[in-house]
């Protein structure tokens, strides 16, 4: 029941906020902020024992769902506040709430087809609504993202239907008397390629990244994590749950296809980091960094090993949190200095030590804090999917963000540009108005006093919140793992791996078991 409550509150408030925003943007943002905090609390109450039957399917709680939803909600709440205090787009709360609600339903659903359809609905809102809130030219860019989200989701749904049909491998392979049926192997391979294509599309992996590159230009930076990182992560969790259960037993037949997936993943990691290194626009830098980090998620499809599921879940929760951290930093920088190219941002770190600290923390989290759970999960994924020496190359790619943001930080330590020098100071001013004690205990007066103080100190508050988000993100990257115990000795996320889709595959029609029966008969 806790799953349904969290999803209902998230979706209900998301729709309300989206409807109210065009006329009362500040009120909508306030409601959205409160809603996200409430959803974070509700999500933290989700238990693995929660089951809500819905026809022959069910909504099932899991540790993965709890950590995913609670972390997303907390990060989104901070992003909404940073956005409101800095750039003031006020277009972040509604899409985040709806995307989060849809992701909760998707990850909790025991029906993978329904999960993809929910993700399509949430993804459409997450990519279109922030763009529509912007100027005309920006809104029109969203068509490409809209098409990608819908095509990816329904490609995933179609693959599931096809694989379980008489045309799928489980039926095709049943006629062979002995040995490996080449027809079944082909259909399994096609299924893997199709589901990976869907995930790559949704996560903006190279070479399907054009829509993501356009989108990050067109929407507020604070809305990027919901549209790209968290939405893509939820998609990958659902898809991997199905793929590992359904295609995993036939993994021995998928050598070529898995190699292809590994090439796409490796290309995304390396080329994404390279693109981030070459761009001067910080929105592009953030966007390509998110795309590159998402490439590690694709590695789970290159291994299809059940032990990859917990590692993937741990990595994706940290990935979403770290993407939020970068987005919070970029939003605060944009609000503070009003520009977004490195050439204009020289000296930003000298003028804003809080934001500099935030960037260092998030970058450290993404590169891999010592003993960090996310880094260990990523290393586990690489180890499972790639053989030496390719695993070393992929792990070197993980160092890409250090180069990328080292360059950003270096620019920040140079002599301040005119724009940066003219920007308001980050220090709290504590002027007479904000120091004046309130003479009344009325809640309304107190709220007004707080609002006035916040308005006066918004540069400082936004930077502080960006730092808080960075601390949260790096903490998630440290703790999103876990306890030892996986079969290869690598840490297992405390957020239990098997999202409910994994559980469903085991409990329900168990396509994997039938695949095993029909595939390996030698």
């Amino acid at each position, binding site marked *: 029941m806790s799953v349904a409550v969290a999803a209902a509150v998230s979706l209900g408030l998301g729709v309300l906020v989206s409807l109210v925003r065009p006329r009362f943007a500040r009120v909508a943002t306030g409601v959205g902020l409160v809603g996200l905090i409430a959803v974070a609390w509700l999500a933290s109450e989700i238990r693995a024992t929660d089951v809500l039957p819905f026809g022959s399917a069910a909504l099932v709680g899991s540790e993965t769902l709890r950590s995913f939803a609670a972390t997303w909600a907390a990060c989104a709440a901070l992003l909404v506040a940073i956005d409101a205090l800095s750039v003031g787009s006020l277009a972040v709360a509604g899409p985040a709430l709806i995307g989060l609600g849809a992701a909760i339903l998707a990850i909790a659903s025991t029906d993978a087809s329904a999960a993809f*359809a929910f993700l399509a609905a949430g993804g459409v809102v997450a990519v279109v609504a922030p763009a529509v809130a912007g*100027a005309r*030219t920006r809104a029109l860019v969203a068509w490409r993202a809209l098409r990608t989200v819908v095509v990816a989701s329904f490609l995933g749904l179609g693959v599931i239907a096809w694989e379980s049909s008489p045309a799928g491998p489980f039926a095709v392979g049943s006629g062979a008397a002995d040995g490996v049926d080449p027809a079944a192997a082909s259909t399994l391979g096609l299924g893997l390629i199709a589901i990976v294509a869907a995930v790559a599309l949704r996560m903006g992996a190279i070479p399907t990244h054009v829509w993501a590159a356009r989108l990050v230009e067109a929407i507020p930076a604070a809305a990027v994590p919901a549209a790209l990182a968290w939405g893509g992560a939820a998609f990958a969790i659902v898809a991997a749950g199905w793929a590992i259960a359904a295609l995993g037993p036939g993994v021995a037949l998928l050598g070529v296809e898995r190699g292809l997936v590994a090439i796409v993943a490796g290309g995304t990691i390396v080329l994404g980091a390279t693109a981030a290194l070459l761009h001067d626009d910080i929105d592009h830098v953030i966007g390509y960094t998110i795309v590159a980090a998402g490439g590690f998620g694709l590695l789970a499809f290159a291994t299809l090993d059940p032990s990859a599921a917990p590692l993937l879940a741990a990595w994706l929760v940290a990935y979403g949190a770290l993407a939020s951290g970068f987005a919070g930093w970029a939003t605060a920088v944009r609000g503070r200095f009003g520009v977004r190219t490195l050439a204009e941002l020289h000296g930003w770190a000298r003028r804003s030590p809080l934001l500099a600290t935030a960037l260092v923390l998030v970058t450290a989290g993404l590169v891999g804090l010592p003993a960090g759970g996310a880094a260990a999960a990523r290393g586990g994924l690489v180890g499972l999917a790639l053989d030496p020496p390719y695993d070393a190359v992929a792990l070197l790619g993980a160092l890409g963000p250090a180069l990328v943001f080292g360059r950003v930080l270096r620019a920040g330590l140079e002599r301040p540009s005119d724009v940066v020098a003219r920007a308001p100071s980050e220090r709290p001013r504590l002027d007479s108005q904000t120091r004046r004690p309130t003479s009344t205990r009325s809640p309304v007066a107190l709220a007004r006093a707080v609002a006035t103080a916040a308005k006066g100190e918004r540069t400082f508050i936004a930077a502080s919140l960006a730092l808080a988000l960075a601390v949260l993100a790096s903490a998630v990257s440290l703790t999103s793992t876990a306890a030892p115990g996986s079969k290869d000795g690598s840490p297992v996320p405390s957020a239990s791996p098997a999202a409910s889709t994994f559980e469903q595959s085991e409990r329900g029609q168990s396509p994997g078991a039938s695949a095993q029966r029909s595939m390996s008969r030698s």
Partner: protein
Amino acid sequence: MIGGLALAAFIAVAGAVAAVAAREPRIGLTGLVLALAAAPLVAEPLPGLNALALRIVGAALAAYLLWPAVRAGRPGLGGSGLGWPALALAAVTVAVIGLAVAAELVVPVPLDTGDPAPQPGPLDPVVLRSGIPTAAGLAVLALASLPVLLPHDTIRLGVGLLLLIDGVMLLRAGLGGRPEALEQLAVVASLLAVAAGVAALARFGAHVGPLRDAGFGAGAGPGAGPGSGA
């Protein structure tokens, strides 16, 4: 029962042809509603009454969300340059192929004598139960591919995406059986989200593609960051 299935499939495909081909917006939207509303009926066995009602109401609401943009005189639903006869012929061709493929997928039950049973033909009732949804789904997907891959305005893209969802669900009913209630609910949510998203985008103009991209590039200077227009 097969007759009802075939009738519903015919309505779904004909509606899709009208939605893609019609130059008159009212006809196009009516076709879209027919295609979306008839699709859940193309399943054996039929979905429950609640699920059926949900899908039909969802279809009507999706078209209703698109209607203001069409009524406001914005471009869109301008019809395919191919014309409806060509589109209908293409849909029929793809449907026939789909039926033939479905016939190949049916595994015949061995005879009592132990001899292998002959492969049923495309018009065998056993084949038609799964073949009609499969054929209709492939036909609708073929029709949707044009506005999805080559959209020249937002509303046409939206119509294509709604038909794509419709086609995938038909195909899913043919290959994987009737969708369950949770999936029906999720599909309706997707239909409404896509329709609302397209309607929102259409407020800002209709053109998409390279022309629009150029406009975006021209308007986005270094200082024009996200949120600046908000």
